[in-house]
């Protein structure tokens, strides 16, 4: 059966806004989602590790206690911010997306179950008064493991959606939805790439906690920054190995995109490599200082820029993968202007109200008194 003939026909309804707007919103909201996800997953993983395997070090135990209460809200934010890119990806790539999810229906459905368990697990840890018991550390680690599986299923789904050539063999072998994308050679390096990045960016949660504590207890704050910085450096070094593996596992056509074939992709990769090296260098020097604050900010800033470019790179890669079959940029458009304007207006109001809530919560006088 030809691959082309199996790809579902386009939805007959046109795009209700120009392609670029959806693309922009997709990449932007994906970026926000991935950063918060990294904080939740990477930060939670580091905390679980410190709590379970650094029993002797009192500061590590404190790190655990301070970080775990933040994880449930970060998961809430991850899910909420994840909804938007999931919506926009269905608008632009629905025929690929739905098909992939159906082929691996059970793992995809299990995402919900795993999320639910992880979520309640995080809350158990966060709300438990006595955080020193061994059991609590394990609950944390197991919940993190559930998130790990969710991430793996996501990677499977998004690689599967980009390789229609493998669909029919999988589906007709098992129509009951018990498939993953194991045959995909990029799956493992790609997933590891995200995983390691998660730890690197997740370390920022520890570092940021340290930065906000500086005024109160400089010693402990410095410990947090150093500990976070170490995780960041080792993770980013590992990333160089994983990243190269990922790159060479790509099909030739796609790989060449990053080697000059596509300007944006090539520059993004370059920025990634140079930015990664610079951040490691700055961080490793910084954490030897008595006051590592400025270098920490720099390393985080550079990494933030790298993540933006990585999000774009991912998009270029998807476009490259799908280009033999489909170009989302050529979809017919019929803008629902009135609704779009309403959305934009409400979006701005929403951000204002949100910021006001945060401001009132953290900065009202009464709030400061009790702190």
């Amino acid at each position, binding site marked *: 059966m030809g691959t082309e003939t199996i790809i579902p026909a386009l939805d007959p309804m046109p795009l209700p806004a120009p392609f670029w707007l959806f693309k922009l919103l997709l990449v932007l909201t994906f970026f926000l989602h991935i950063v918060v996800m990294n904080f939740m997953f990477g930060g939670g993983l580091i905390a679980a590790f410190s709590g379970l395997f650094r029993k002797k070090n009192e500061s590590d135990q404190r790190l655990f206690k301070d970080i775990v209460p933040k994880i449930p809200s970060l998961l809430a934010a991850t899910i909420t911010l994840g909804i938007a890119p999931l919506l926009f990806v269905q608008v632009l790539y629905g025929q690929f997306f739905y*098909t992939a999810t159906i082929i691996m229906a059970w793992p995809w459905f299990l995402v919900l179950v795993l999320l639910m368990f992880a979520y309640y697990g995080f809350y158990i840890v966060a709300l438990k008064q006595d955080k020193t018991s061994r059991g609590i550390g394990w609950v944390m680690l197991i919940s993190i493991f559930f998130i790990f599986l969710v991430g793996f299923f996501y990677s499977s789904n998004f690689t599967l959606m980009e390789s229609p050539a493998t669909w029919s063999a999988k589906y007709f072998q098992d129509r009951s939805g018990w498939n993953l994308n194991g045959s995909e050679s990029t799956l493992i390096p790609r997933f590891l790439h995200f995983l390691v990045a998660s730890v690197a960016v997740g370390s920022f949660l520890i570092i940021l906690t340290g930065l906000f504590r500086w005024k109160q207890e400089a010693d402990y704050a410095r410990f947090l920054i150093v500990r976070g910085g170490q995780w960041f450096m080792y993770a980013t070094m590992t990333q160089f190995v994983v990243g190269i593996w990922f790159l060479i596992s790509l099909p030739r056509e796609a790989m060449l995109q990053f080697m000059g074939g596509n300007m944006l992709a090539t520059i993004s990769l370059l920025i990634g490599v140079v930015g990664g090296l610079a951040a490691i260098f700055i961080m490793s020097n910084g954490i030897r200082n008595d006051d590592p604050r400025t270098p920490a900010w720099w390393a985080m800033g550079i990494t933030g820029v790298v993540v933006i470019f990585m999000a774009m790179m991912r998009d270029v890669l998807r476009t490259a993968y799908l280009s033999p079959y489909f170009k989302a940029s050529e979809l017919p458009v019929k803008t629902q202007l009135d609704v779009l304007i309403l959305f934009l207006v409400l979006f701005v109001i929403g951000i204002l109200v949100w910021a006001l809530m945060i401001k009132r919560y953290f900065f009202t006088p009464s709030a400061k008194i009790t702190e």
Partner: protein
Amino acid sequence: MNYPIWDLTFGGGLLIAVVAVTHVFVSHFAIGGGLFLVLTEKKAYREDDTALLAWLKRHTKFFVLVTVVFGAISGVGIWFTIGLIHPAGTSSLIHAYVWGWAIEWIFFFLEITAALLYLYGWNKLDRKTHLWLGWIYFIAAYLSMVIINGIITFMLTPGNWLKTYNFWQGFFNPTYFPSLLLRTAFALALAGIYALLTGTVQKDPELKGKIVKWSARWIIPAFIVIPFFAWWYIGNVPEIVWESARGKVPTATRYANYILVFSILTFLFSLATLIKPKKVPFVFSLLIFLTAYGTMGSFEFIREAIRKPYIIYDYMYANSIYKNQFPGDGGLSIQNIQQEGLLAVSKWTAHKEITNDNQLEAGEDIFLLQCQSCHTVDGYRGIRKVLVQNQWSQAGISRRISSLDKMFHAVMPPFAGSAAEREALAAYLAALAPLDPDAVETAETEISGEAVFEFHCSDCHEYAADDTLFTGMAKYDVAQISYLMTRLDSLDEEMPPFEGTDAERETLARWIAEQFK
């Protein structure tokens, strides 16, 4: 057809129902409960009641753990699930209403943030700021329903959208406002119903009594207005659609009966809490919780059942086939499939052509593509059971397939496929339930004309003076009717041959001749 089909042996419809009903029961609580939190907080301040306030703090934790965690994930869960089971329908909803979903997402974002800050703010903020967060929460949560309600009601009564494809015309459709009020009332009732759960475990009888009385004030008025809103809602559902729940379609009718029973019970039980508010046991609040669950669940089932055979009314059938042909439909309209053949038009089928060797396998494919969105073989709405019970011959099954859309008040889409495909499907179904040679003899017991009518004709004919069966037979006498029944399949090409015994045929003929005289 366009998409592969997830072969779920226990039934995709069941999975959707389970996820959706639980979500709805929590998400309405998330709305009403928001108002409950702020108004109860105000009440506690006004009455300077520290015990009530202390309970409310615990209740807030319960509220957040239920709505923010379970509510949010099950909400995403519905979306995941319908995407897996009705990808084409989901795609339509997303394309027509992306901006609706996106707006809903803004409110959702505010809602989640406000809920968490409200919870953590209990010990941190001054009263005014805390209440302000509570109000933001409630308003955002309510507005998210204002949006979702438009899209859900659109599916049942798309109104003018069918002609104009205009966002607002589909959004503010005929059932929009009645449904919004109905859901609002239900959300308020649920606020009280959930409060009873945490209220009745309180040890202090004064506090418990107070919470119970206060909760009842949320439930009882809501249940008094619900029938009026329901009546208004029904008035805006097209007559022919609502008839499904008035006896024409068994499932819809069953749930219409359940909802009456459940809502009356919820109402009476809630009234009963007022007899001795201080002594209401937890199990009793659990009972109210369950009857309310039954009420909400039945409502969702009725809505789903009367919308059948469509997923979006008059636009797309539940099995993803478009009702009408239009440019860009990918050839997936009934009309085109009837011309071209289902297997030819489908992308995701193992068999492209029917040969003598693969007839049964092809039949299975056709069942999967066209029937499995509502049926299974042995699970939810299982077809084997029906076939074993009815003992239809393959020819009878084949005729029934051609008039699927005449059965049960048109709850099913018309069959879309070539004659060979219909035969293949009939062969596959017949093979699921081989005829039982003893069946004929057991049927020889005492029979009434009415029973024979019920068994053999009522799938497609109604017991009504103007039904074609009775008008068609009116001019004939018993002998003629009896004779005509031997050749029903030549009276109308969509009618199956009569498959009862000769005795049954005689009885039925006599009975028909006597009706509506």
